[in-house]
């Protein structure tokens, strides 16, 4: 006699205990500290902060530890925490022109005011496994001159696009009203067509892999937009708020960000003369790959505004923005693990009926 399955509650508790033990791994191996994750897995922390939409290195490190290094799970943890935080106010727009730059490159000009600053980058490293690291000797001599901490440029560096702007070669971007309300898709559901601000917010939170693939697709002809990496800069900017009772800006934080300004060819339209157009990417932390891909996708999504005929998924705002979020997509894909006995039973009844009506022989 069949007895209905019971014990979901005990099973869940046991699963949680197993998970905790697997997370810790072999207890003879020293436990990771949050400081170690923050310092030595810094780019993982950056990605979790960027897609988790919360600038807090310690909490991001905690999420990475808790998620056993599953970054999408870590992003989810951070998001679920973020959603409970009160919104105390809105910062002033961040001025990336005043960034303390640690890295700044332009692919459009050989040299430019402030110069090219290579900074700490994987570019031009030979991807050879460094077996010295495996031995625990990381090879960095802290006394060596060139191995010191990266030095930020002393002076603010002009942005490449601003240099083009002066000549009228690139579309002008209206400065916008600082007092105008800023869309926030975590408070208001997205509606289509979305404002560019909300679109950029969506892309900044979007899964890096998804945006990377879409950006790549634009390069291969699906919504091609002839990009040049006008400028990529990585460094520190200050965040300011204006407290109501003071009425003047107060710096509340310094954050690391990556900004990418793509410069894209544009042949002109009936309304606009030929000029360069812009694609924009911005992320928390050092996330160059993401910022560049984001700029490509941003430009692709601007097709309607620029009078281009959308022909690819990369130019389809609803397609891109509805499927970019890893927390949403990961949840919905994995919800297929939940029981579907009832729907499946309904389908079984139907398929048996249809087969009987079609004269199918059982078992064939």
């Amino acid at each position, binding site marked *: 006699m069949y007895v209905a399955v019971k014990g*979901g509650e005990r099973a869940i508790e046991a699963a949680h205990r197993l998970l905790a033990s697997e997370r810790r791994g072999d207890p003879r191996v020293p436990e990771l500290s949050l400081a170690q994750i923050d310092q030595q897995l810094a780019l993982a922390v950056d990605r979790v902060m960027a897609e988790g939409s919360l600038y807090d290195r310690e909490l991001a490190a905690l999420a990475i530890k808790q998620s056993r290094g599953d970054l999408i799970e870590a992003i989810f943890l951070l998001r679920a925490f973020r959603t409970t935080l009160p919104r105390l106010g809105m910062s002033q727009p961040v001025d990336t022109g005043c960034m303390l730059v640690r890295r700044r490159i332009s692919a459009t000009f050989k040299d430019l005011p402030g110069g090219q600053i290579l900074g700490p980058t994987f570019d031009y490293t030979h991807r050879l496994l460094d077996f010295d690291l495996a031995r625990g000797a990381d090879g960095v001599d802290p006394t060596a001159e060139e191995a010191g901490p990266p030095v930020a440029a002393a002076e603010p560096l002009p942005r490449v696009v601003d240099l083009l702007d002066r000549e009228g070669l690139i579309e002008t971007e209206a400065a916008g009203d600082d007092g105008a309300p800023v869309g926030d898709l975590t408070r208001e559901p*997205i509606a289509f067509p979305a404002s560019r601000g909300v679109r950029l917010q969506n892309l900044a939170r979007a899964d890096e892999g998804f945006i990377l693939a879409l950006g790549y697709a634009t390069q291969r002809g699906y919504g091609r937009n002839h990009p040049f990496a006008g400028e990529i800069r990585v460094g520190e900017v200050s965040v300011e708020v204006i407290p109501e009772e003071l009425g003047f800006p107060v710096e509340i934080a310094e954050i690391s960000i990556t900004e990418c300004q793509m410069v894209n060819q544009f042949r002109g339209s009936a309304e606009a003369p030929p000029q360069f157009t812009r694609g924009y990417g911005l992320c928390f932390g050092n996330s160059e790959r993401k910022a560049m891909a984001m700029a490509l996708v941003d430009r692709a999504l601007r097709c309607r505004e620029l009078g281009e005929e959308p022909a690819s998924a990369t130019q389809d705002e609803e397609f891109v923005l509805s499927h970019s979020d890893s927390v949403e997509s*990961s949840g*919905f894909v994995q919800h297929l693990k939940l029981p579907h006995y009832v729907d499946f*039973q309904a389908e079984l009844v*139907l398929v048996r009926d249809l087969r009987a009506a079609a004269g199918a022989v059982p078992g064939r």
Partner: protein
Amino acid sequence: MSHYNFAYLDEQTKRMIRRSLLKAVAIPGYQVPFGSREMPLSYGWGTGGVQVTASVIGPGDVLKVIDQGADDTTNAVSIRRFFERTTGVRTTSRTDEATLIQSRHRIPETPLAAGQILVLQVPIPEPLRWLEPREAETRTMHALEEYGVMHVRLYEDITRHGKVAQTYEYPVIVNGRYLMRPSPIPKFDNPKLDRNPALLLFGAGREKRIYAVPPHTSVRSLDFEDHPFEIERWDRACALCGATEAFLDEIITDDKGGRVFVCSDTDFCSHRRSRGVERGV
């Protein structure tokens, strides 16, 4: 859980959701966009239902949570524990004892009563979604009451299969106006939607939509005069309680084709059995 507010969500968020609920009740079957929050459980696992429940639950409520009709499936257990931890309210598996029921994929067999609230978790709220993927387009179709494509789809089933081959999330017209996807309940449960004395609330967290069927509202499953709507029937009874009018789950008992059918609604089934024992059956 002292770090969190009663029922997890802060009061401002609850108010925002309740305003959306009021709008949903005022326009039966209409999908109201709402500022769905990121919840501490995965999208697709009931975040919409949880937010709706969290915004209407009070300390005096008695909560029942079911998934596929059962109180003890793992996700039902998980959501029930979430509310036990965050609200401390009394929980029950008895449909007739609960003031608030959160469910996935089923409406309980025991008829609901006036004053009860049933919250259904919804993965895809848009009934036209498989016919038109674009939200901007489907919203216009609803505004214009342009539902011909759905009738055509059902008609195509009839020409191909001789019947409508839609077994769950079977489309309905609410209050003679809005086409609604009744969450993925089996069409077996569709008749329970019609003029139900309880308040039926639908929450889709990932898709950020809320909709409602207020008490005693007409809910008509789409059909044709010569092909009236019908629900599935089993030619067996529940192996545990003998019910013949309930939705049955099929359980495979061995690898030789052995199977039994049991009620999907575990509370309904166990209640029948306990009465049967009392009667000495």
